[in-house]
């Protein structure tokens, strides 16, 4: 009986809370219509972008720009909400695939991909060894389950003079679909034909081996906890948790540690041969200092904006994010966009139209 009373109270409290939450959420859309109120934009998508966006959107509003409400629901969700017309922009850690493009175009015409930031993915490990060196082939063999001991000949050959323990390799990957996984598997697919044919590159894949952990915090936690563990996560998690990161052999044959600069250098190299739609995957990028597992994150919008006020505000916001907004990237451990990429972004944004007309 007692439980029943408690549960009634709990339900009542939860209902009250959710009603309050709804009211809070509903007010903004109500005020959007009013001409005197500031423009309010809605966005949703990538969780990877969230810390950066919080900072940039806040700063933008302080200098008199539109107010942006961003919900970090995951890249796939962001694209769906954009297609459904729920949000003004989506943010995704991977470019739209063919099917997503088809559905989006059917709903609102062509889309524009705007790279807004870059990140590096660390390969963290738990061994009493500093500065472990790995190359793409070895890493893919580990994730394919072909290398099961840390003192395997392939790893030893890359680390001459290092005493590798006989510990079993405990592979950790993300359990849920994620942009981080997309970048990581894109890299493995780029360097290993076997990975490409057996597993492929996607936000979630059929892992040949290992343990799935939830979120980057789960993967880093699992690696920290497991002697012999290896896992991948955004660079900032390695720093926060003091996890050792492997040095990876890049396309120029140099071993590079993950860093903001390494990602930026990889991105700069990618700008040179950027496809017209800006959907560049630049894993294993050329350049002596490029860190090989780096990638863009994109804001995706419809090329033609139906609502004049909102469309104008959105274009202004995008311009701010890819230029002045980049100053906030580095302190938050994102790589700021190199100048050539910023220019390409501005060019892409300038192709956007409002109700078929170029913006005034």
């Amino acid at each position, binding site marked *: 009986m007692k439980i029943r009373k408690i549960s009634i109270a709990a339900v009542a409290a939860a209902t009250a809370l959710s009603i309050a939450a709804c009211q809070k959420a509903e007010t903004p859309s109500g005020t959007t219509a009013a001409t005197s109120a500031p423009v309010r934009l809605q966005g949703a998508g990538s969780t990877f972008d969230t810390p950066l966006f919080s900072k940039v959107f806040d700063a933008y509003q302080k200098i008199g720009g539109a107010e942006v409400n961003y919900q970090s629901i995951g890249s796939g969700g962001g694209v769906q909400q954009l297609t459904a017309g729920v949000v003004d922009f989506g943010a995704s850690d991977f470019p739209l695939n063919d099917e997503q493009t088809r559905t989006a175009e059917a709903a609102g015409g062509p889309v524009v991909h705007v790279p807004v930031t870059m990140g590096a993915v660390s390969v963290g490990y738990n061994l009493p060894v500093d500065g472990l060196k790995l190359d793409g082939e070895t890493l893919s063999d580990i994730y394919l389950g072909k290398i099961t001991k840390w003192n395997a000949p392939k790893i030893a050959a890359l680390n001459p003079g290092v005493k590798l323990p006989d510990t079993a390799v*405990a592979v950790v990957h993300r359990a849920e679909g994620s942009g981080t996984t997309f970048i990581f598997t894109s890299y493995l697919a780029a360097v290993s034909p076997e990975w490409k044919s057996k597993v492929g590159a996607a936000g979630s894949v059929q892992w040949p081996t290992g343990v799935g952990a939830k979120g980057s915090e789960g993967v880093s936690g699992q690696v920290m906890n497991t002697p012999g563990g290896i896992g991948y996560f955004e660079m900032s998690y390695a720093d926060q948790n003091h996890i050792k990161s492997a040095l990876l052999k890049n396309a120029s044959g140099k071993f590079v540690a993950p860093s903001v600069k390494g990602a930026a250098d990889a991105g700069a190299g990618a700008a040179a041969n950027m496809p017209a739609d800006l959907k560049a995957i630049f894993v294993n990028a050329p350049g002596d200092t490029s860190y090989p597992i780096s990638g863009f994150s994109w804001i995706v919008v419809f090329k033609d904006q139906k609502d004049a006020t909102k469309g104008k505000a959105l274009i202004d916001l995008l311009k701010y994010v890819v230029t002045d907004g980049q100053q906030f990237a580095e302190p938050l451990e994102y790589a700021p966009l190199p100048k050539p990429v910023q220019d390409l972004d501005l060019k892409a944004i300038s192709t956007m139209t409002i109700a078929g007309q170029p913006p005034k």
Partner: protein
Amino acid sequence: MTRSRDDGMFRFTTAAFAAVVLLIVIAIGVELWRQSFLSIEKFGLHFWTGTIWNPVSGQFGALPFIWGTLYSSILALIIATPISLGIAVFISELSPQMLRQPLTYLTELLAAIPSIVYGLWGIFVLTPIVRKLELAVPDPLKKLPLFSGPPLGVGMGTAALILAIMVVPFTSSVAREILKNVPMAQREAAYALGSTRWEAIKVALGYGKSGIIGAVMLGFGRALGETMAVTMVIGNNPQVSASLFAPQYTMAAVIANEFTEAADELYLHALIEIGLLLFIITIAVNALSRLFIWSMQKRTGRTVILRPAAIEEVAA
């Protein structure tokens, strides 16, 4: 005249409310079906038996998830049932009066802990302990399928332990209520026949048998649907394995994990079909336990102390 009209109105209103529950269940079922038709069309019954879950090539089979859900819940039940009954018997029959309230309160407190907290505790406290235990398993035992595989710490065994802890407060508080409702005359009669205390408790347990089975099934239902804590410690690897050491996956966990980033239509539909399967399995488990209780009532020719509806009332 007015009185009978009021009665009629009252009956109608409450019946309408009752119908809402039924409508919601039907609506959930229909909506799950509608949203998963692509996957239902493409895989048919193979969806139940397929073991491959590959979002890249668009091949989906739910067997590893069904297996993981049932296996972890049954293991949790095996661990939790004796503990819960022990707690219930102690609190209602043996405990000194002054301990009764605090003990009741403490077990109920376990139910109030959010599952994410259980999960974090699982990762940082339970997993390292389980890994040590796994390392301590002697070599000959490791040849058994139950203990095969590398000692990762996360996996089926850890998940079952967490689930068991989460199920105990539910099962034990319902079982306690049931024992409390066993008429004193039953125990007095047993004592009058010269029973020991243990024998008298056995009589009380026997009297409340169907209610206690209801309590256990309630715990099972809870274990089937638990998501967050399980996904944090089970290892999330879709495979069918009997090993307690092996990382596995559950239905609720795969939906929670993969739904947000499921990009293409078929993938999304496959995930929703997993939801549909979970819905069907939960209903089946509930229906079976009801049938079981009813058949038992018929056999013993005795009304149960707590009707099934009352059981849920207590536990809700």
